[in-house]
């Protein structure tokens, strides 16, 4: 066991320290940070003085009263002429001319484009408020009358959280799971096959096998790769968790989060369930098969050819589940949910749609676990014969010879 752990640690250390792993793990975070950076930069650029609106009035007091936002407005231009010049030189986005005539405020906006809707709303409210004050002053009404005038009708709103329908949530959940599977398998099946193929050509394997049984080395290797995948997923889970708690507090994402909070919670519930076990067992099973393929070739450059059968099964599961995923009652979905390799893609669909009995679930899980166990044992028993062959005799012959040598 100690030797298996040593191999596990060595495999883990070697892969986790590699630049390809670091870049792979960091790339989504880099993408998010770059996107946020762009967002921040564009919002900073949005503070440009040329986007401001000049408030112009013959009465300075009125002009300053109507400055609804200090950042978005300016009082620098005091006459229409100055403001027009500034507009022509694109120093401002437009200007508001304010006049008070016969107890009424008159405002006119001049600009090359319509006034920004948000600013228009802000300014409109301010204008309304100032006119109200002026009206009260002109009408000379008592405080009691004012109170009566101030009464507002009551309008109650009951907001029903906007979220996705149940069917959409289920679709999103299973699509997410099969994409996750596909993503992990595409990356790691090739990685382990490549790793094993590059070791195969070296005599150091004989030194290792003279220190421990080849099958133990194989188990250590598989577990090491699985630990790398687990680390990868853990980092994404932590990153996702961090986003889950931070994003609702950020101004930029607050809106979307509050709108879809319920949907997100339901999707997370669908993901963090027995489905995750299917993903993990599926990954182990495919990793073992990929390791076998890697051990069948002599040159690392032949790995892509050797790993094709694995890729075909992955694609069959992925595209099959994607196509048939909407209908969990489909006979193919039902059958495929029991077939090891495919069950990791198809059973989550049935689980998400609640279309599977406990017995069927246990049967499918049992088959998956047994397949992983027996495949690992079988490949482990062949491993020395596979790895110690260095003749380039083709994949099938190599497999046959290893079975004979075993």
């Amino acid at each position: 066991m100690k030797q298996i752990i040593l191999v596990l640690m060595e495999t883990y250390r070697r892969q986790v320290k590699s630049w390809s792993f670091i870049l792979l793990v960091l790339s989504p975070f880099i993408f998010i940070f770059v996107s946020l950076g762009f967002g921040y930069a564009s919002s900073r650029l949005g503070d440009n003085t040329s986007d401001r609106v000049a408030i112009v009035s013959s009465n300075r007091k009125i002009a300053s009263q109507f400055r609804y936002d200090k950042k978005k407005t300016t009082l620098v231009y005091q006459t229409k002429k100055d403001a027009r010049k500034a507009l022509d030189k694109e120093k401002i986005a437009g200007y508001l001319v304010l006049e008070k005539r016969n107890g009424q405020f008159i405002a006119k906006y001049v600009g090359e484009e319509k006034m920004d809707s948000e600013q228009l709303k802000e300014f409109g409210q301010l204008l309304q408020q100032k006119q109200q004050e002026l009206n009260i002053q002109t009408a000379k009404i008592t405080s009691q009358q004012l109170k009566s005038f101030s009464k507002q009708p009551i309008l109650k709103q009951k907001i029903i959280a906007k979220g996705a329908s149940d069917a959409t949530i289920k679709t999103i959940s299973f699509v997410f799971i099969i994409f996750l599977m596909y993503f992990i398998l595409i990356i790691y099946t090739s990685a382990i096959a490549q790793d094993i193929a590059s070791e195969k050509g070296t005599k150091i394997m004989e030194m290792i096998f003279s220190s421990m049984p080849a099958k133990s080395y194989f188990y250590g290797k598989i577990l090491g790769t699985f630990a790398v995948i687990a680390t990868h997923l853990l980092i994404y889970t932590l990153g996702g968790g961090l986003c889950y708690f931070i994003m609702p507090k950020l101004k930029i994402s607050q809106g979307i989060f509050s709108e879809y909070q319920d949907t997100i919670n339901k999707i997370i519930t669908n993901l963090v369930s027995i489905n995750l076990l299917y993903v993990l067992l599926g990954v182990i099973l495919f990793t073992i098969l990929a390791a076998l393929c890697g051990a069948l070739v002599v040159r690392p450059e032949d790995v892509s050819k050797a790993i094709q059968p694995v890729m075909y099964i992955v694609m069959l599961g992925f595209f099959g589940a994607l196509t048939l995923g909407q209908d969990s009652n489909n006979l193919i979905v039902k059958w495929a949910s029991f077939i090891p390799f495919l069950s990791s893609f198809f059973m989550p669909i049935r689980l998400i749609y609640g279309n599977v009995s406990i017995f069927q679930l246990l049967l499918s899980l049992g088959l998956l676990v047994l397949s992983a166990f027996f495949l690992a044992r079988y490949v482990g028993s062949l491993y020395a014969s596979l790895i110690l062959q260095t003749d380039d005799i083709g994949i099938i012959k190599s497999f046959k010879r290893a079975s004979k040598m075993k």
Partner: protein
Amino acid sequence: MLKVEGLEKNFGNKKVLKGLSFRANSHEITGLIGKNGAGKTTIFHSILKFINFDGKILFNGEPITKDVYREIGYLPEERSLMPKLTVFQQVRFLASLKGMSVREIRKELLIWMDKLEVKGSPDDKIKSLSKGNQQKIQLICTLIHRPKLIILDEPFSGLDPVNTDLLKEIILDERRRGATIVFSDHDMTNVEELCDKLIMISNGEIVLNGEIQEIRLSFGSTKIFVQTNLSMEQLQSIDHVTSVKKTKYGTYQLDIEDEKYGEEIFNIITGGKYVKTFDQQPPTLNEIFKMEARR
């Protein structure tokens, strides 16, 4: 002691090893020789349990199990290490599989690097070392845990004469320590110089097994080295002489049908007169190897 009994191995229908039995003792060096493809590597792979086989292989009375693995040091035929690792990382990985602690490995590595005159430090990357030094590091990986059974598959290949001598010294040291050493080599000079015992394999069978001198003598002293005034033609015409060769030092080498004709040939060549050299010897190991390999 390594005991191999009735070792058989088939690859499909092909019988590669045909019931071999031999012993290799502690404090002894046993040479395993044979033509390419004779089955030497298959024997090593069977001892190391890389492959399944029929028969029995015991070390100190026990079958080769996980526990016995710790007592084995194996140097494969070709040299190869993990080039991206440092010397320490490489040795640490292999030595910890043999059960050594990191502290022991660190201490022993320095001792061995000094002993084998490795130029470089434990923190150097394997790929930065010369081929010869990489070979030495691989030897350190084989011997650092002081194994009781040492298997060396052509350990001298690619070494210069200075490093060959250094390695011979190390192998002799290990024998003095009490290890059971089995090694294969195509250079019979090395085998003759180092081995106490010899096993020759041909077509999956043992054709020679015993102490080197005994094996040589068993072929009879059919070789005569002589310095004489007689010509090549005269020597060839002597009865029971099968061939005559002239060495570059002027000595004639005669092969005779049987050692019993030695005295008769001596009398003919000397004719009662003085000759500088007349030496009747058994064939060399190299010649025995060639003879047996051709059969």
